[in-house]
């Protein structure tokens, strides 16, 4: 039985990182020699019952022809709350791009940002203004006198910059390849 428990632990680890339902076949391929289908099924059952009983925050469920480790419906509210909380500390890729444009091309108007990005960026600019990373400062003396945007003092503090001249030059930026936002 001790062996079944350690098999259940391996199965739990695999389900926890898989991010998708895992089939019995895939589990069999992973757990090593000398383990058969019935044992893997028994391990899953052990795992399933353990998460049922003990006031666990997770459950083992059978979906799409495989098994996965998932949260429970009763925690949905807390999870939404958490994801909302976290997204307040994050920026979308679009907002980050816009921030980069304002940082390097300031003062800049919304039409100019739209032109550079190729998409309407009013929403993301508003987000950046709300987050106090960007602020409107004056108007450009052209038709429509659009608002001019600049980065704020908070922006400098956040990125640890003494002033705007300390932003990396294009050469320094080339030292880091890619777009700088890819997952590690």
């Amino acid at each position, binding site marked *: 039985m001790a062996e079944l428990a350690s098999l259940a632990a391996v199965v739990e680890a695999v389900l926890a990182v898989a991010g998708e339902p895992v089939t019995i076949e895939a589990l069999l391929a992973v757990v090593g020699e000398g383990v058969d289908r019935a044992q893997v099924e028994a391990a899953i059952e052990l795992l399933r019952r353990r998460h049922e009983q003990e006031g666990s925050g997770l459950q083992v469920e059978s979906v799409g022809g495989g098994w996965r480790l998932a949260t429970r419906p009763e925690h949905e509210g807390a999870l*939404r709350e958490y*994801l909302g909380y976290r997204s307040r*500390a994050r920026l979308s890729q*679009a907002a*980050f791009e816009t921030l980069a444009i304002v940082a390097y091309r300031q003062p800049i108007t919304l039409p100019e940002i739209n032109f550079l990005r190729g998409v309407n960026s009013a929403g993301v600019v508003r987000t950046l203004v709300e987050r106090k990373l960007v602020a409107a400062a004056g108007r450009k003396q052209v038709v429509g006198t659009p608002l001019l945007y600049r980065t704020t003092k908070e922006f400098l503090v956040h990125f640890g910059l003494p002033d705007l001249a300390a*932003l990396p030059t*294009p050469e*320094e930026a080339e030292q*880091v390849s890619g777009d*700088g936002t890819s997952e590690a």
Partner: protein
Amino acid sequence: MDPAVVAGEPQPRPAVVLDVFEGPLDLLLHLVREEKVSIWDIPIVRICDQYHEALGRMERLDLEIAGEYLVYAAWLLLIKSRMLLPRHEGEEKDPRQELVERLVEYEKVKAAAAELAGLAELRRGVEAVRCAAPDAPTEVELDLEEVDVLALAGALRAVMERHLREHPAAMELAPIRFSVREKIVELFELISRQRSFPLLSHLLTRPDRLEGVTFLLAALELVRLGTATAHQRAPFAEIYLTPTGVALPMDALVDG
């Protein structure tokens, strides 16, 4: 090199596989340890000769020798020659001192690196649990705590590259809508805020190509007036404008 030291048959030594070394300091540390001598009292003549021997083997194997190895080779020769000169007690510091200090610091780095490598080894197999979240945002979000200025610069570069792909430069004639005088003032303000202002990327990203041309004329005017200098490292490379500190002579500005 030094007949007094390399007299007789050279001892057969195990071939040093040079590409396993991280650099001249790593090689030197290896040689010192092999000699089983104190790092504080390096027999510099012997170590220097062994170092050059190692480089010689590298050459014979036709390996490319990194510049850093040659810098240290020259430095070692200099220290060796100073050691061979008569020195008066307490008059000047040991010629080896700086080298020893660097080796000691590098040894610390290696020890710390070994600690980290050991930690990483213990962490293999530790992966974040990622259960599916209800309504997880599909858009990639960046943790503001984790993005740095280089990521910011990278994002700008990505935008500019995409933009230039979508808007290839083309010539077109249009009526004059921008005044050079106005652009001189605007450009002067812009360059005064930065150490080096990237003129080309600024020009290429103006929504109106004619505005870009006017900017170029304005830039030339700023240089002519002695208020800015322009640098370009290679043909077609970025042109940087640097303010000279000379104020803008408003009355000398051309109209147009």
